[in-house]
Every structure is written in structure tokens, then in C-alpha cells.
């Protein structure tokens, strides 16, 4: 009935779906807290600096498409950033890598401006598309950073080698920088070059943290349950492997 090696994967996904649904329902009567994330608290400071210096806030959502969970997480944060820039009358520019995402980002930013009662302040120029070509996009963004000297650069999403280039260019023009990615090879670059860094799964908690919507916070709880489960399995595996009896666990997980 099942494809080879898919039984455990299927059970895991079904369990997670039930857990997310259960916690979201439970969030109607129960609240959870998310630990402090300084990188996200700095968004107000970043936008405030842009307002004071009359320079823009540059938002980079990375190169993932809508199928990339990091992009989805980034959209949630962008919504909050756009509301803040609308509130402070700061100039926001979102540099989008893929043309098919332009209408999505326009809608997110427009809705945030509408929510703040600043619908007239929204213009399509808030969203800039340069090229679907990876290098073309990166060169254009770096050129824009040097030329227009943003007061703040917020980079959240899926990044590759270009992460360091944006972060370094931003640091060289003196921008306040917030960087976050789940791409493990790029995290060190953000840590090195940004004022604030969101590491790994923190970007998935970002939207929940900023909005404090019970429904979103509930999903973070399931993520933590998953981490407890994985940590437990790692510890069990380490103990069993030490005593040379881990074969049955290995076999069980391979079903």
C-alpha cells in the first residue's frame, strides 16, 4: 500500500497535521509566550532610523519562490515591516527576485498600508523587480545599496552566496541590518555582517512573534514538540548505539 520507506514519513506528517490543527483550536482558550527575539524588536529602530535620515528601508526576501517555506515566513514579517513603515511615513523598497512574486508582494505591502489608513501612500514603486537571473538580481541590489544608501536593510528568507554581499554592502553604507535565514551555510555571514541575526527556525517564528496572533503562536508550540521528539530520538539513538543495540531503531525508522 505504501511506497517503500514512506510509512514513518506518512505517520509523522499526519501526526503534525493533527497537532497543528489541535493547537490552533486550543489557542482560542490558551495563550503561549515566545522567547524574546532581539532581531525582530529592532525593526522599529530600523524604520525609525530611515524616517529620521529620510532614507529608505530596503527589504530583501531572498530567492525562494512561493513554494519555499522561508519565503512564506518572510511574507509574514514583510507585512509587519510595511505596517511600521506606513505608520512612520518611511520609504520602503522590496527587491523581488522572481517576477511571478511581484503581485504577491504588492498585495502584502498594499494591505499593510491600507490597514494603517495610508492607502494613498502606497505606490507600485515600493516593489522593484530587476531580473529573474540570479546574478542580475544580485548585482542590481548591491548597486542599489551603494547608490541609494538605505538607512536599514532587512534580509529575511532563503539566501545563497549573495547573502554576504548584500550584508557587507549594507554594512559599508552604514545601514542598520537585520538578517535571517534557515540556509545553514549562510547564517555565519549574517552573524558576521549584520547588527541582528535570526538563526534557523527563528525566521519561522518571526511572524508569530511580531503579530502575537494566537493561531500563529500555536504552530510554534508544535514546532517545539517536534524538537523534543527529535532530541529524544537522537539521545535514544546515541545511548543504543553506545551499547551496540541501535539496529532495531534504525530499522524501525526506515519503514
Amino acid at each position, binding site marked *: *500500500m*505504501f*511506497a*517503500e520507506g*514512506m510509512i514513518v*514519513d*506518512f505517520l509523522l*506528517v499526519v501526526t*503534525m*497535521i493533527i497537532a*497543528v*490543527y489541535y493547537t*490552533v483550536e486550543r489557542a482560542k482558550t490558551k495563550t503561549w509566550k515566545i522567547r524574546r527575539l532581539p532581531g525582530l524588536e529592532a525593526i522599529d529602530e530600523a524604520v525609525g532610523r530611515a524616517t529620521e535620515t529620510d532614507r529608505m528601508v530596503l527589504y530583501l526576501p531572498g530567492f525562494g519562490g*512561493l513554494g519555499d*517555506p522561508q519565503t*512564506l*515566513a518572510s511574507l*509574514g514579517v514583510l507585512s509587519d515591516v510595511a505596517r511600521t513603515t506606513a505608520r512612520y511615513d518611511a520609504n520602503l523598497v522590496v527587491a523581488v527576485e*522572481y*517576477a*511571478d512574486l*511581484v*503581485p*504577491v508582494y504588492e498585495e*502584502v505591502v498594499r*494591505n499593510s498600508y491600507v490597514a494603517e489608513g495610508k492607502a494613498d501612500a502606497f505606490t*507600485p*514603486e515600493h*516593489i*522593484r*523587480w*530587476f531580473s*529573474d537571473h*540570479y*546574478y*542580475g538580481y*544580485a*548585482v542590481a541590489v548591491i548597486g542599489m545599496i551603494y547608490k541609494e544608501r538605505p538607512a536599514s536593510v532587512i534580509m529575511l528568507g532563503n539566501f545563497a*552566496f549573495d547573502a*554576504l*554581499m548584500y*550584508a*557587507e*554592502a549594507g*554594512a559599508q553604507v552604514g545601514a542598520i541590518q537585520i538578517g535571517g535565514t*534557515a540556509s*545553514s551555510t549562510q547564517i555565519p555571514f549574517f*552573524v*558576521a*555582517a549584520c547588527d541582528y541575526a535570526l538563526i*534557523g*527556525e527563528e525566521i*519561522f517564528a518571526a511572524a508569530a512573534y511580531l503579530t502575537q496572533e494566537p*493561531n*500563529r503562536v500555536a*504552530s*510554534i508550540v508544535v*514546532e517545539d514538540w*517536534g*524538537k523534543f521528539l527529535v532530541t529524544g530520538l537522537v539521545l535514544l539513538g546515541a545511548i543504543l548505539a553506545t551499547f551496540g543495540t541501535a539496529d532495531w531503531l534504525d530499522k524501525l525508522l526506515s519503514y
Partner: protein
Amino acid sequence: MKNTLPYIITVVTAVIVLICTFFGVAPELAQELDQWSVVSGAVVCAFGLVNLTSVHMKTIKRKGEDWDLSIVLLVITYGYLILGLVKGPTNEIYSWIFNATAVPLGATFYALLAFYIVSAAYRAFRAKSRDAVILLIPAMIVLFGRAPLGEYLFPFFGEWTGWIMDIPAVAAMRAVLLGATLGALISAIRVLLGFDRPYATGGE
């Protein structure tokens, strides 16, 4: 409708792909859906072109900063687009323009990474705080351990480098990877259940 239809398409597509993956049935159906995704992505590329034209046309009309470069950009973009439409993507001139400009420019850009790494390393490794010192010490060991001259001068650094790369670095990477994977899974489930609808932000 603006919200509901995309949600129905998302759920139906996701359920089909999940069934194909878990139960190993009709793999060609999942591949077909994947193809549709690629084709629809190519079609909506026009949105980007509209955005690019709009931004640069305004700069040209206002005679804003570097408005002449906006003209160059639009001429090249539409010129290349027309060439591709008329001659086809396999045309020799069309391919030559791409290979003679975009490819070397990409390689040059990638090469710049080395200078950015040096600049970032200088900033990160300045021993101004306890954290920076903690970062600096293993970084110097790995740097010397990996470089032939460093390993010649300090032979034991090679072994230390191996330990740093294989034990603490791998442990940290795996921890990040596990957390990120779980976060990605939960995000995907939220979209599947309709709690997040990034594709229909405009409302009904």
C-alpha cells in the same frame, strides 16, 4: 472567490502530490503538476516586466537620477525580448549575446565574493568582545589548519581543524537544520490547512 479558488487549487494539488509520494501511485501525475507550476511561473514573468517598465518609465518622465541609464535598460530589455521572440531562443546571435555578457558578468560577480569575505572576516574577527574572541580562536585554527603553510608551521592545527569541523561545527549545523526543517514543515502544513494564504492576500 479571490481567496477560495487559490485555496482549493492548493489543497487539491498538495493532496495529489502527497498521495503520489506516500503511496507511490501515479508518479507521472505529480510530475505533470510540477510541469504546470514551471509553465505558470514562466507566464507570470510578464508581471515583472510591467513592474520594471513602470518604475523606469516614471524615472525617465521625471528625468530623475540616472534617467539615461533607465532608457538603456529598457532598450536592452525589450530589444533582447523582441530578438528572442522573432529568432527563437536557440538562435545563434541570441545565445551569443547571453553567453558573451551574462555568463562572464556572473563569473566576475561571483569572484567579488572573495573580497567581501575578507571585509566581513575583518569586521567579525576584531576581538572587541568575548563572543568575537570565541569566534576568532577556532577561525584562526581552521584557517591555519586548512592552509598548507599554516599546517607546516603548526602541524597540530590540522588535527584540531578536523575535530572542530567534524564535531562542534557538524553538531551546530545539524541542530540548525533540524529546527529549520521542522519550521518549514509546519509552515507548509499551515498553508495546506488554510491558516496561511499568502497567494490570496487581497481578500475575497
